[in-house]
């Protein structure tokens, strides 16, 4: 056995010389771990959302006629065109040629990731069919130009771009956007803005049906207007479920979507089908729609509304106490009418503008639901509150994130 003293033998290390690679040695690429990645990508998610919206988009043409396709087309074209223009003008981060990248990443024109298409479709979805042609153009331009790109593009916007676009045209073109003048429709085409007339006539959709014998499957004004009127005028005491159905489109049609309203919001069925696929893939987080719709339902049940309780003046009382027999139908109408389905399934679930943590998502969804039902019950100016509810909660999302940071492993809170 030989032993040597370490102090004697250890030679002073020569300066590190880079090993000369052999001529035939392969050229190695070095990247940081992990070297495996899951298949999901941003583009895949965004294009999937766009595809999930296609059934409702096709159906909007069936309900509202060719104007629906015109509006969707204009909004998508504006969104994509403007995003391409802005990202063309903005310097982009160069990608090394060794890194495989899609054309839109390499050119910096981010339109290929599909998010502008989604925004365009969603902008059109929250506009009614009767708006003038430039309204969707303005809404999409505001959505992409101001709400999204001015904040730094994908991932950096604070508010849902589509809803900012809608809010902008809502205050800019109030007559176009007035829900009381939403179109009355037949099964396949749009016959005029007579929503208010329908209500003041007192007979609802039936009156128009009777007045125009050639028209079938009339849908009336946005049912939400009627719900609102009922709530504010306090006529619940004698309303049976049948009476409800006489004054409003029946629940089945509300669910299928052959009713008035904004382009994409009418068919709860098709929106649910699209959203179910995305939830299955994990690309929209189920907590948000569940908390949103749950809070709307709960709020409709327990928040006081004007109810005729025998006296001359209506009193404020929750429907659950004032007229429990109608309560389930009332809740069902609130869930199916207006933009709640579209908002809960596709607007509030926008990843960029909602919180990160699951606890935060519950709070976010519930907040949207609460604000929506508060708008619906107590705002005199405006029957619907989905748009502003979600925008307000978007504002709160960073705060919710801060509150709901998970406890870090090994920390005691």
């Amino acid at each position, binding site marked *: 056995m030989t032993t*040597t003293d370490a102090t004697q033998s250890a030679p002073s290390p020569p300066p590190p010389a880079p090993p000369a690679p052999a001529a035939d040695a392969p050229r190695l690429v070095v990247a940081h771990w*992990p070297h495996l*990645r899951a298949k*999901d990508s941003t583009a895949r998610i965004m294009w999937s959302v766009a595809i999930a919206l296609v059934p409702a988009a096709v159906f909007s043409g069936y309900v509202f006629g060719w104007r629906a396709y015109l509006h969707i087309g204009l909004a998508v074209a504006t969104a994509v065109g403007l995003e391409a223009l802005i990202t063309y003008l903005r310097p982009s981060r160069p990608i090394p040629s060794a890194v495989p990248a899609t054309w839109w990443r390499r050119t910096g024109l981010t339109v290929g*990731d599909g998010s502008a298409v989604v925004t365009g479709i969603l902008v059109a979805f929250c506009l009614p069919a009767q708006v003038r042609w430039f309204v969707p153009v303005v809404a999409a331009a505001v959505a992409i130009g101001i709400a999204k790109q001015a904040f730094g593009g994908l*991932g950096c916007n604070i508010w849902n771009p589509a809803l900012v676009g809608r809010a902008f045209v809502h205050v800019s073109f109030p007559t176009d956007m007035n829900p009381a003048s939403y179109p009355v429709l037949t099964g396949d085409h749009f016959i005029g803005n007579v929503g208010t007339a329908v209500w003041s006539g007192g007979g609802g959709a039936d009156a128009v049906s009777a007045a125009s014998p050639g028209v079938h499957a009339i849908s009336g004004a946005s049912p939400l207007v009627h719900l609102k009127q009922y709530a504010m005028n306090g006529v619940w005491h004698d309303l049976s479920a049948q009476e409800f159905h006489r004054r409003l489109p029946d629940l089945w049609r509300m669910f299928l979507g052959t009713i008035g309203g904004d382009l994409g919001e009418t068919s709860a069925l098709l929106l649910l089908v699209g959203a179910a696929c995305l939830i299955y893939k994990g690309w929209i987080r189920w907590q948000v729609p569940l908390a949103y719709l749950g809070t709307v339902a709960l709020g409709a049940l327990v928040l006081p509304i004007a109810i005729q309780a025998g006296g001359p003046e209506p009193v404020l009382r929750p429907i659950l106490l004032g007229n429990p027999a109608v309560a389930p139908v009332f809740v069902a109408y609130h869930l199916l009418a207006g933009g709640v389905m579209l908002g809960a399934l596709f607007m509030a679930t926008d990843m960029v503008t909602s919180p990160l*943590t*699951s606890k935060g998502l519950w709070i976010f969804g519930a907040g949207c639901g609460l604000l929506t039902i508060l708008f619906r019950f107590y705002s005199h100016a405006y029957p619907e509150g989905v748009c502003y509810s979600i925008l307000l909660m978007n504002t709160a999302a960073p705060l919710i994130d801060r509150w709901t*940071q998970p406890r870090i492993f090994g920390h005691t809170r």
Partner: protein
Amino acid sequence: MTRATFPGGVHPPENKWTADAEIRTLPVPPSLVVPMAQNLGAPAVPAVEKGQAVARGEAIGKPDGFISAAVHAPSSGTVTAIRQVVDAATGRTTAAVVIETDGRDRWLDSLPAEPRDPDALDPDAIRRAVADAGVVGMGGATFPTHVKLAPPEGKPIDTVLVNGAECEPYLTCDYRVMLDRAERIVTGLRLCMRATGAGRGLVGIEDNKPRAVEALRRAVAGAEDLAVRVFRTKYPQGAEKQLILACLGREVPTGGLPADVGVVVQNVQTACAIAEACVDGRPVTERVLTVSGDAARAPGNFRVRIGTPLAALLAEARVDQRYEELILGGPMMGKDQFTADLSVTKGTSGLLVFRKAAVYEHGPCIRCGACVRHCPSYLNPSRLSILGESFLAGNLDAIDTAIEFGLMDCILCGTCAYVCPSRRRMVHLIEMLRGERRKALQRRREKQQAQAAGIRRQVEKVAD
């Protein structure tokens, strides 16, 4: 079969192609290059001279301090050089002893000829034997094992956990060792229990390895203080903290060690090495590793000498020369190498070669929350990566914010980057922030020392 697990994590495609491949013993190569940096902590100091004859098991590197490990000659031969080589773990250079093997593979004469009775060894003798044998964590972390077996005062150890999770895709070497050497592993576990005074020994295995579970169950049958725990197959189940949580429901406190919750964790191959060190008195001279990846035409599990040049392994696995990526370790936490001119060390659990390198373009965070949902440390990787980019853009305060968000609690497992649809460089940015923090602390220390020296000079001047 109840399947314990931990919150978070992912299940990447397993691709354990070599699971059914028996361990093949690679012939001793004509030349061994044995790096001195084979452990976490200070590298060993070369203890031999050029031209010196060495026997297998002879110490050629002496530990430099307590957190360091000895290095032994993996075969007999002559030292032909002591030169600088690339250290695969850090990419820097380290000293390495080059041994021209003589083909006789002669063990050192002074090693015990007869196996010792493991039950007759006291804790100190076990620790000494383990330290003398240069045993380090062979799962890849390479922490010197004798340090782990010496629990700090006031932290009683009640459980020793043997880690047979092998949650990295592709790797199957631990699995094959569990099939072949279950008895050895249990002997090692018993020795660890004796050294630490633990009353219970557990073996943790993922449920994608039922045959290993069976083998270990047979090996521990009849012992009341030993048991096998089966986990759901999920990455990073083999991470120490996640293993302890899944097995015992205990959470290692932040900045703490498993000893803080009364646990010592050893990899299955480490347990084998401990048994060999104590029973046979044999130092670590070989290990089992997996060679796989789509560029390997004959992937397999190999028993190789420490210091074997990768070229020998690549030839044995019939790797074609057109590969683009060479990973030491698994695909999730293994490190890409810029050269194949490396050798096997005690921590090399796998050698993966791919025809096409896995390089990804990265985009902005879309706040999908996938990383937050899957993080096994319950962090907000999205936020940490954004802080990393913010730092690169010149916001130097980002480090402090990142520490609030758990920068130092990240285990660098890469789960966040795996699930990220924007393919963000989470681990990369987190490591960058940690490095910058280290540098900042170093600068602050130097500044304070300079200031103190300045004050001293002033005081001396006044005193004069």
